[in-house]
Structure formats: structure tokens, C-alpha cells
């Protein structure tokens, strides 16, 4: 039987507010345990939550960027369960009426086509603290610094049909929240993580199969591996005569497998009800328009502009806009160069990316800043150096932190455009290789490349390639 995979993702994006969603405590990562938890975060008797409007504005940004409906009235609800890192015994979330409803997002598939994925909802909620089960001699430690950190939970429709699609969707959301500056996207620190709902069904069947929810996936690679493992598991199970049970599963990255955490029967009854400590969240047109006026150019818009105005391919435009920092870097180079977008794009996606990867740096930490790269590319454009020499100069810039011109001058890499100097080099090569010259003239055209190489070598690679070709052709012809 042929099986179809059905995937829906719930992405938790930690919102980049300075203070928590219902208290004034700082949200900065990495502070000493419990140093960023005030009486509200600790759930002390008598304290009350007060909504941080910056978190609301960020949710609206996300909603506007995904073409969603911004609910004029949404409700905070309590999700009740006991756990030591949940100080109040309930998490404040949104249940029946979330702030963002029915948006969508286009992802680029491997075959170059686009697919629209529905976003059912995105709601605001507070994060729990952390339970630390090591280093306490059999006891557990509780760190409530994270308790009350604002999260936007983004729930997709079950519209993805492969792990690759799921990853493409997750990456797109990751790109978007960073463009919108509502989430730092740091997956190691848990600022961006996801739960995947996975099921399989015979191809052509309309009814969904029973799903398993894989919790807390915090890397794109894990999402892909966990889904693929889970799909295999479910198909094997069904084909072996078994049935999939609805349950929550955990992915173990060390063993590359998912395993059962709790079944539906064991699931908590969260007893959701509207939080009486918070008024319904009312959002008016003025607030929405104020947020809209601060929206940046979004990745899809930017990519479309790169294609239309810069003449880039859709693929290149997609790569360059995958991160706002890369796109900004590229645009700065184009601006400094005064045009030549393809040259700039090739360098940003090629040598720059390679260098960044090699040193494990983000573009913001690049050893060659965008204006410096523009200066280098300008020297290619004005024939001061060849593209090949430029690679050498770039490497030197990366290593020494000096400007392109400085390196070109210091190393004498300026291209030779003086016709008589190039002619002299050609003459020397011809004189030194009479046999090859005779063979060429006898019709062995392939030897042209040999003469180019020899002449380049004679000029230490500095001859202008176009000029050299031109002159060589003429001289070899006799």
C-alpha cells in the first residue's frame, strides 16, 4: 500500500520582549537561577498578572505578516496542571479565542513550486520554568527565570505531507519571526522550538490517521529525523497489523528514535477556563494600524523585488532573503558597488557564505563588512583585478582585516592592462614553446588553453584575461 504522511506543527516562538508577559521581570537568558523571578513569577499569594502590551504588538506583527485575522477580542484562559516548575498550578494561555486566527504562509518546495500552508491560529501564553534533575543528589532543582516568558504558539493546519515540507515550513516561520524582530530564533536556548503532530493514511483516503505528537524538537535536523522515524514506525506498525494510538512521544536525538511519553488516556484534563484576573484582550483598529506602519519588508516581498529589480533568479533571491541580515548585507554591497547585483549575489552566496561557515560566524560577525566587500567587487568591475585574484584578496581581507585596495597595492596585484606588457609576455611564451606553436598552427586548437595558462603565469596572473585572450588569438594566428 502507498502511504501518505500528514504533518501539522505547533511552533513555540519566545517573544523578544524585555520583560515577561505578565510581570516586570527581565527575560534575559542565562542569569543565575531564580534571579529573574519576582513575586508574580513565583506565584505568591495575592499577586496578579498584568499583560505586557509589547507581547500583544508582537503577536499582531506576526498576524499581519501571515495575512491572518487579528481578533478584536481574545481571551486568556488558565490551563490547570500541577508541576513544580509551574508556580501557580496553571499556565495562562489562550484557548477558545486566540489573538491571531487563520493566516497562511507559502513555502518553496524542492521542485521549485510553492505550497501554501494554513496557520490555524497563533496564541499568546507564558512559558513555564525549568526543572533541573541533575546535580541535586537525587532531588530536583527549579529555576523560574523562564517562568512567565512570553511565547507565541503558532499552530499550522495538518497540511504538510513530508518531513522536508515540515522543515521548509518551520524554516520559513523562523525566517519570518526574525524579520519581524519578535523572536531571536535561538534554538539552542529554546527560543524557537516545535511539537510535530504526525500521522499516516493510505494515499487517497480522506480521513486522517491517528496521530502522535512529538514534543519539544529544537533543531531543524531533529524535526526531519523525528518525523521520518515516526512515519516509518507508524507504517510498520499498521502493516504489521497493529494500530497507532494517540499519544505524546519524545524524540531521543542520541538514538534517533521517538518513544512514548504518555497516552491519550493518561493525558491531563487541563480544565481550561477564562482567567478571571485578566480582562478580555481588546485590540482596536488604531493599534493594528500602528503596528502595521512599523512592519519591515517581508521575505517574500524582498525576494520578489530582488527578482524584478535586480534580475536575480528566484532561487538566489530565496537564499539571500532567508535571513534578514544576509539580505541587508547583500543590499549594502549592491549599494556600495552602484549596481552589479549578480556579482554581489554570487559573492555573498559563495565566498562570503563559505568563509562564514568555515569560521562558524553569523553574518553580523563577518570579518569582511559589506562596504569592504563592495570595494573589492568594485575592483573586479573596474578591471583593477580579475575575479580569480579577487578570491585571493578576499582571503587576505578575511585574515588581516585590511581593505581591498590596501592589499592589492601591497601585494602588487593590480591587473596588467598595458597592451605592450602583455604582448611582451606572449612573445616570450611563443618563443619558448616552438613545438606547441607549430602544432597549434597546424590545427591543434586545443592548445590555446595552454598558451593562456603560460602567458598568465608569465604575468603572475595579473594580465587582464579578456585582453590577454584577444592579443593571444591575434599573435598565434601569426
Amino acid at each position: 500500500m502507498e502511504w501518505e504522511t500528514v504533518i501539522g506543527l505547533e511552533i513555540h516562538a519566545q517573544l523578544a520582549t524585555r520583560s515577561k508577559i505578565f510581570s516586570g521581570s527581565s527575560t534575559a537568558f542565562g542569569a543565575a537561577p531564580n534571579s529573574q523571578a519576582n513575586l508574580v513569577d513565583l506565584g505568591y499569594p495575592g499577586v496578579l498578572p498584568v499583560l505586557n502590551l509589547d507581547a500583544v504588538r508582537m503577536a499582531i506583527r506576526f498576524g499581519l505578516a501571515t495575512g491572518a485575522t487579528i481578533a478584536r477580542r481574545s481571551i486568556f484562559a488558565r490551563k490547570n496542571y500541577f508541576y513544580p516548575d509551574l508556580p501557580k498550578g496553571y499556565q495562562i494561555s489562550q484557548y477558545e479565542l486566540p489573538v491571531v486566527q487563520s493566516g497562511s504562509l507559502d513555502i518553496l518546495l524542492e521542485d521549485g513550486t510553492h505550497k501554501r500552508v494554513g496557520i490555524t491560529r497563533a496564541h499568546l501564553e507564558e512559558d513555564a520554568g525549568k526543572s533541573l534533575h541533575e546535580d541535586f543528589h537525587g532531588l530536583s532543582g527549579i529555576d523560574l527565570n523562564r517562568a512567565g516568558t512570553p511565547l507565541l504558539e503558532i499552530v499550522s493546519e495538518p497540511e504538510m505531507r513530508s518531513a522536508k515540507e515540515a522543515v521548509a515550513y518551520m524554516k520559513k516561520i523562523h525566517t519570518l519571526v526574525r524579520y519581524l524582530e519578535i523572536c531571536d530564533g535561538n534554538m539552542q536556548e529554546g527560543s524557537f522550538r516545535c511539537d510535530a503532530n504526525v500521522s499516516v493514511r493510505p494515499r487517497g483516503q480522506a480521513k486522517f490517521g491517528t496521530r502522535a505528537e512529538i514534543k519539544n524538537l529544537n533543531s531543524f535536523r531533529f524535526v526531519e529525523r523525528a518525523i521520518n522515524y515516526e512515519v516509518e514506525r507508524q507504517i510498520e506498525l499498521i502493516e504489521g497489523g497493529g494500530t497507532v494510538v494517540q499519544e505524546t512521544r519524545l524524540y531521543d536525538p542520541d538514538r534517533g528514535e521517538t518513544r512514548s511519553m504518555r497516552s491519550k488516556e493518561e493525558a491531563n484534563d487541563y480544565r481550561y477556563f477564562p482567567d478571571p484576573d485578566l480582562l478580555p484582550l481588546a485590540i482596536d483598529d488604531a493599534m493594528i494600524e500602528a503596528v502595521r506602519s512599523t512592519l519591515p519588508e517581508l521575505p517574500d516581498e524582498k525576494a520578489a523585488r530582488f527578482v524584478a529589480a535586480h534580475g536575480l533568479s528566484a532561487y538566489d533571491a530565496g537564499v539571500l532573503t532567508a535571513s534578514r541580515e544576509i539580505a541587508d548585507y547583500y543590499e549594502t554591497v549592491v549599494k556600495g558597488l552602484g549596481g552589479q547585483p549578480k556579482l554581489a549575489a554570487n559573492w555573498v552566496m559563495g565566498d562570503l557564505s563559505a568563509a562564514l561557515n568555515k569560521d562558524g560566524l553569523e553574518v553580523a560577525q563577518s570579518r569582511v563588512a559589506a562596504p569592504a566587500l563592495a570595494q573589492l567587487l568594485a575592483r573586479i568591475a573596474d578591471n583593477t583585478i580579475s575575479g580569480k585574484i579577487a578570491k585571493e584578496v578576499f582571503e587576505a581581507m578575511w585574515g588581516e582585516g585590511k581593505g581591498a585596495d590596501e592589499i592589492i597595492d601591497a601585494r602588487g596585484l593590480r591587473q596588467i592592462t598595458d597592451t605592450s606588457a602583455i604582448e611582451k609576455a606572449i612573445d616570450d611564451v611563443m618563443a619558448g614553446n616552438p613545438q606547441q606553436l607549430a602544432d597549434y598552427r597546424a590545427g591543434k586548437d586545443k592548445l590555446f588553453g595552454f598558451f593562456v595558462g603560460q602567458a598568465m603565469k608569465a604575468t603572475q596572473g595579473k594580465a587582464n584575461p579578456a585582453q590577454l585572450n584577444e592579443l593571444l588569438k591575434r599573435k598565434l594566428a601569426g
Partner: protein
Amino acid sequence: MSLHTLTVAELSAGLKARRFSSLELTLHFLGRIEKMSPALNAFVTITADRALADARAADERLARGQGGPLTGVPIAHKDIFCTDGILTTCASKMLSNFVAPYDATVVERWKAAGTVLLGKTNMDEFAMGSSNETSFYGPVCNPWDPNRVPGGSSGGSAAAVAGCLAPAASGTDTGGSIRQPAALTNLTGIKPTYGRVSRYGMIAFASSLDQAGVLTRSAEDAALLLGAMAGFDPRDSTSVDAPVPDYVAELSRPLAGLRVGVIREFFDKGLDPAVGALVQDAINALRAAGATVRDVSLPALPLSVPTYYVVAPAECSSNLSRFDGVRFGHRCESPRDLLDLYKRSRGEGFGAEVKRRIMTGTYVLSAGYYDAYYLKAQKVRQLIAADFARAFGEVDVVIGPTSPTPAFALGSKTSDPITMYLNDIYTIGANLAGLPAISIPCGFVQQGGRDLPVGLQLVGPHFAESLLLSVSHQYQRLTDWHKRLPTEYA
């Protein structure tokens, strides 16, 4: 006349005129508390050192000609309000070791007004009760008859003020917890509009119903103290950002022209006829003073008790989840594991009534029952609010008894929670609708050779505290029920 029988208004005038100092006054009350509180069991904590320090500071201000009308006036707080550095127990074993690290807004505001804190008063555990018999610290006695309850849940505050151990005290009212004890102890007790007084630092029972207020011996005192407590607080999202009127200045509003609606549903078969007769006398007195009186019907109101006993337990079951033995409060000895820690800490820390409500609330919020109970109760709540709104289209205030009976005997209803719950039948409606309501003394019935006070309840539209206080004040100018004190405590 001795100091302890003076009203807050009289004490305020005396302090200002330097007829006595705040220290003198405070020592006098502390002396009475020491002597008489053990029998009444009105206080959980007596803050003598703090009181003396507050009094000295007040005297210094008064000596410099500074301070406001409450500077140097001793008060007591219900032990549901967090007080910085002072034990705050909610009369529960669960919090019997809890020293609050901050002041509730109500505490902060009365402190800023210059009051002197005498102590923290006893109450029903987590404000769940109508007789003050659910307290971990034992029941409170009614100063009018030591064998009877003072009402609840603000029973300690009521007994302290009625017994002249404090001139005034704070209370909280979720379903009648200020008004019913006020009625049973001959006090004036006002529950303001939901949102009028900040709930910050007031340990939550049922968040959508809880409201702080005051228990005093006159409407004028209630006006003074409510004014010092009310107002917007950015730390409470449900507090309302509206200016607080000068309640004292508005007390002089005359009764002539006042439109009074008598709530027909309150004169039901559950009402003690002797109580009904006194309430009718009070209504007649208002009419004689120029008010027009008519009957109003609030047909959904009889549903208020079942509605309340879905909504309040639902909210409390969630609000009390934070008492888990992890960060503060009672923790069981040597827990085996996490579940054992939860079960035993909560099992040992909470009393029977609190557990009953947590279980009821957990049940009504559970999957499959939510719609039938919680959601339906919310709908009925809307109907009750709509009934009141309709009535206020025709009359300025609605009126009726506060409690169906006078104070009942200690222990007489503890074995039957439903009978106990029905005690709040007339007070719950105002909480469900978020309306301001006041109870004022309107006479006495004789039972067992004792005079037992009876309360008259007035309910007004949202933010009509001024009106309720002025009607009460004008009525108190015509009558002297509120001036009568229990003989043993006068």
C-alpha cells in the same frame, strides 16, 4: 464616654484637636484586645510593636499639624491581606507559617493614610464560610452572644469592631462576607463595585467575585475608610480607572426623591418573619423621609446560590493550586516523591470546607461537565446581572434583608453545608453582578434572652457607592440602631 466607643469620625476629630494622642488610643485598644480578644478569638495576630511604632509616627505628624483624617486611627486588617513582614495566614494551616514579603494595595493605602495597624483578624479559611467556623484558628464568637457566630467570612473583623476592639476593620466579600457579618454584629459593612478596590495582595478565593471593603460602626466611617482604600491600581488588571468621589462630602445628599425598589424575591419563605418585619420598618422609615418605594422583581435571583456554588469553587480550585508545598506555606514531612508532596501537603494544609470547594470546582471544570455547569452558571450570571440592570432603570437602589436570620448558634449548621450556603442567599446576587452593596443595622430581635442585630441591605448600580453611603448615613441620622453596642463590650 470611653475612647473605644467613639466612631472613626469622632476619633479623627479628637486626634486632630489633640484631645488624646494616637499612642494613648492605640494602647487603649491593645489593652482591650489583650483582655477581650481571647474570648472572642477575633485576632490571629496582634501587631503591638508595629501599632506602637505607627502611633508614634502618627503623633509626630499630628504634632506638626500634618496628616489626614485617618492619621493615628487604629484599624485591623482581615488576615487575607498580605502585610509586609507580618504573618498572613488566611486562617489556614496551609499559610500558618507564611510571612508576606509585601503589602497588599489596601494595606499600603491605609498605611499611607496614616492608620495604625492593631493586628490581623480571624476569618473563615481562605474566606470560605458564612460563620467563621472554618478557621484553622478556631471559631470567632459574636459579641452580642458568645454562643452565636459573628457571620463570615470576615467574622474576626466584625467581632473586633462590634466588640470595640478596633474602630474599623477591612474585610472581603465574595458572596456576602462583609455584609452578612455586618448584619449579624450590628455594623455597617460595604462591598464596593467589583473593580473599585484593588485586589492586589488580597489572597484570591474567587477572583471574579472577590472585592475588598470595610466594616465600621457608621456609614460616615465607611465613607472615610472606603475613600482611603478605593481607586485604580495598575497592578490589578480588573481594577477600574475611574476617579474616586469624595464619599464623605456626598453623605449629605437628602433622601427626598430617592426611588427605592423592594426586592420581592427576598421576602420568601426562608426569611425569618421577625427579620422581615424589621426590614419593612426600615423601608417605611425611608418612605416617611421622602423616598418613593415600589416593588421590583429580579426573577433570576433565586438561582444565585447554585450559580455561585459553581463559579466560586471553579475559580478557587484553580486559585488554590499554587499552595503545593513547593515554595511557601505548609509542606508535609519527608515526602516520598512529588505526588506524595502534593497530596500530603495539600491534604494536611487545607480544611474540610476548602477541600469541598476545590473538589466541586475541579468537577465543574472537568472535560464533559464544563458546559453543563461552568458555562451554564456564567449564562445565569448574565441573567442575574440583566435583572439588576433592568431594576436600575426604574429605581435608584434596591433593598431587602441582608441575611434570612439573625446570628445562629455556633455549630448549628456546620454539619450541613447546603443550609450554611443558603445563609448567603440575599448577598450573593450583588457579587455575581459586580454591584456595590451595603448592610446597615435596622433593629434587633430577641432570641434566648439576647438582643440580636438585624441588617438591612441596599444594592446600587455600578459605582453608586456614594449613593449607598449617603442613603445609609441619612437613615442613620433618623435611627440609632447603629449606635447600640453589646453590653459586655460597651
